[in-house]
């Protein structure tokens, strides 16, 4: 998640106002209308009689907590799933969208959160995948190249159609996907969390493209958890909660608080619960640490017991890499790591765990959980060795008791401890990862984007938990790309830029501007030894 300077939005705002077409010629019918759509899945009702209207040349933001039904509705619109009941209208005419192809025919295209490109093929091949123009029965490469150039120009992407997709940075890959959507003459473009893996700069480019498309008559349904983005980009906001409409906000009503309130259904005034408190002994101290990702810089910092230290920075600043070195995923090139005053060698996660460290990784599905296994198995995974009985036999009673404790302590919403983790919501999955580590009672908790992709309610619970753990004397180091999180939660903040720590900010010194200054490389001389 990229951190974004506030002023980017100001520029975009002006840009958008300049580009926004006059709305006087708006036709009678909305471009797209969703009426009373209902959809059920095993055990849940994902959508219950929801309504949504998308006007011509409009950016509609669709927001809601995870599990609110946003993605389900988008899949219905894109022809991936069919509704159980309800109606879809385009230009006032009822339509049936029963396949991705028929969605294309109606001018609806979905851009998935995880991009759907064949990254071993070139850009042109991807844009026309499945719809290749042919000449004499063979693929007409010349036409692909020519048409691709036009489409790439429309999304402002200046690369050759012959470039292999995997060589492009992720932001440009996304533009390729948008170009593909435009190639089917999409009038409705659905973007599901488009900025979740983009850098700040890439996100800016994307916003420009979005505004540009709107000015050319394409309407966009924009799904995002990032409310600051929504605030700046959207003409209107529709909020879903628990598979139902929770409310709509017009341009002038859009505010962070209103959106959060509609999403969680209650007033969230006390979002961050951080209380100032006195830290104890230094628990983790890093001296002249050199990471393999950024061999040119030495890192120095320390965390005390009961302290929450935030690590801010842009994507690529080396924050995740630093945590991975501390946890032994990638061994350090040089430098020392001290835990409670003792120098330790960390060559693998095994060493790190032994020393009392725990890491909640950035990608919980890939690194944090074995998705196909039960809650209980996942919670017990890191403690298997510690709790084993003679000859390596599993300690099942202990594992069960520990899981029960974590489920109640972390308020993990799961039918039982045998539930397979992949069926839990993102927030509850994250709690399972936390439970795995807390069962080991670590001295230092490393959190990498602890609230990424989880809903507002779960976020708040995680903040509360961090506070609680710090109070009990745990040292917490957390990487976050959400400015509000950094400002709200940290006792101290380390700001990184291109592999080095450009500044350390105390709670008194911290402000959005100060963080952004440092994150973009403006080093405060006095704070860096």
């Amino acid at each position, binding site marked *: 998640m990229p951190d974004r300077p506030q002023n980017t939005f100001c520029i975009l705002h002006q840009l958008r106002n300049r580009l926004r077409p006059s709305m006087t010629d708006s036709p009678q019918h909305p471009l797209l209308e969703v009426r009373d759509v209902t959809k059920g899945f*095993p055990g*849940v009702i994902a959508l219950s009689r929801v309504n949504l209207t998308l006007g011509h040349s409009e950016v509609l933001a669709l927001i809601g907590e995870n599990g609110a039904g946003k993605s389900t509705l988008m899949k219905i619109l894109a022809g991936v799933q069919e509704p159980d009941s309800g109606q879809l209208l385009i230009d006032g005419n009822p339509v049936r969208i029963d396949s991705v192809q028929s969605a294309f025919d109606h001018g609806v295209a979905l851009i998935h959160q995880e991009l759907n490109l064949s990254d071993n093929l070139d850009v042109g091949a991807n844009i026309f995948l499945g719809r290749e123009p042919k000449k004499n029965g063979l693929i007409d490469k010349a036409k692909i190249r020519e048409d691709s150039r036009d489409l790439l120009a429309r999304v402002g992407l200046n690369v050759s159609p012959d470039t292999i997709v995997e060589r492009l940075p992720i932001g440009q890959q996304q533009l390729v996907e948008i170009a593909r959507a435009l190639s089917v003459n999409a009038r409705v473009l659905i973007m599901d969390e488009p900025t979740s893996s983009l850098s700040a700069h890439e996100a800016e480019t994307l916003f420009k493209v979005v505004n540009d498309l709107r000015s050319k008559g394409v309407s966009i349904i924009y799904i995002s958890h990032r409310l600051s983005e929504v605030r700046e980009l959207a003409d209107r906001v529709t909020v879903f909660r628990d598979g139902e409409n929770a409310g709509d906000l017009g341009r002038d009503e859009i505010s962070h608080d209103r959106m959060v309130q509609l999403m969680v259904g209650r007033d969230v005034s006390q979002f961050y619960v951080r209380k100032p408190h006195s830290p104890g002994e230094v628990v983790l101290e890093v001296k002249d640490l050199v990471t393999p990702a950024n061999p040119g810089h030495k890192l120095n910092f320390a965390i005390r017991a009961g302290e929450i230290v935030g690590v801010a920075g842009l994507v690529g600043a080396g924050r995740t890499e630093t945590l991975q070195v501390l946890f032994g995923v990638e061994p350090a090139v040089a430098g020392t790591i001290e835990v409670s005053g003792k120098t330790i060698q960390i060559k693998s996660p095994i060493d790190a765990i032994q020393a009392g460290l725990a*890491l909640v990784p950035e990608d919980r599905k890939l690194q944090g959980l074995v998705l*196909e*296994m039960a809650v209980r198995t996942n919670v017990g*995974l*890191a403690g298997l060795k510690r709790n*084993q009985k003679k000859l390596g*036999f*599993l300690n099942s009673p202990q594992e069960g008791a520990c899981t029960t404790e974590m489920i109640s302590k972390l308020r993990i919403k799961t039918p039982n401890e045998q539930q397979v983790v992949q069926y839990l919501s993102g927030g509850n999955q994250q709690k399972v990862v936390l439970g795995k580590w807390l069962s080991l009672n670590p001295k230092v908790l490393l959190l990498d984007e602890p609230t990424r992709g989880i809903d507002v309610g779960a976020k708040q619970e995680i903040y509360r938990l961090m506070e609680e753990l710090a109070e009990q004397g745990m040292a917490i180091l957390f990487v976050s790309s959400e400015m509000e999180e950094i400002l709200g939660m940290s006792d101290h903040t380390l700001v990184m830029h291109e592999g080095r720590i450009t500044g350390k900010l105390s709670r008194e010194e911290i402000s959005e501007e100060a963080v952004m200054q440092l994150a973009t490389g403006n080093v405060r001389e006095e704070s860096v030894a």
Partner: protein
Amino acid sequence: MKKNLGILGLFLVVFIATAFANPDFVNAYNLENLIRRASLYGIIGIGVSLVIITSGIDLSIGSMIGLVGTMLPYLLIEHGASLFTGLLAVVVLSACIGLIHGLLITRLKLQPFVVTLCGLLIYRGSARWMTGDSVQGFKGSYDSLRYLAIGKIPLGNIPGIGEFNLPVPFLLMIGLAIVAAIFLNKTIYGRYLLALGRNEQAARYSGINTDRMVVLAYMLCSLVAGFGGILFALDSNSIQPDNFGSFYELYAIAAAVLGGCSLRGGQGSIFGVVIGAAILPLLRNSINLLGMPTTLEFAIIGVVILAGVIVDEVVKRMAAKRRAALAARQALGG
């Protein structure tokens, strides 16, 4: 257990159908032979299932059996090695082969398919070269050792079957299956294998030494294959270096997959593998007894297994759909 119902059903259907079609099927002699073959396949199936659970594969098992099977009588008979030396040599060799597979796969990140495919070629070639491609055997000696493979324990007269003797390999296979099932389900190491087979990264991030566990799985697989090789050799007593054990890797893999091991890793049950291993010799036996042309043997085995897998998949999907519809109805109603 529920996951294995499909394979158990297939086994029972073939078994009962054959029993009705040809009464000779249930005579003691036939059943003893069948159980012995099924047990030997079961042993190597159990070995390879440990590797498949890590989302790996071992294609070298057949050649391993060929190598161990020729090497043991070669050392004992042609070189007059002591029984202890002979057995020690083949066991150490098996362990080393597994160790090398594991190290190549974890350290050099070579693909298991490639490593063990090369193994398949290397061990076969080594066996033929070592023996000059001449047939090996135990020449009527080592009867007490051969008891492990061909021995029988009399169980007396069983009505409808006759004087029935339980083949010793069955006991060995059951013993191995129990140990393997305990290892897989009751120890932290089994849990490690299942976890890393599903998600190697998450396992590593949880402080599991995944490389070491993968090496262990390949070593166990090769050791069990070596053990199987000894038994197959003792059973046959006429070992052709150029084809002894060939294709057995596929029988072992088929047994594991039929028994519910996913080639994507992280899933498997030893009980299923044991039943899966019994299906192959059962089908062969049925084809013989039902008077079908033996030249069609492979084709029939292929078709029956494919049909079984298809039915299993269809049933699973229908069940999932039914559950989904039911749940959706309940959700809508509530």
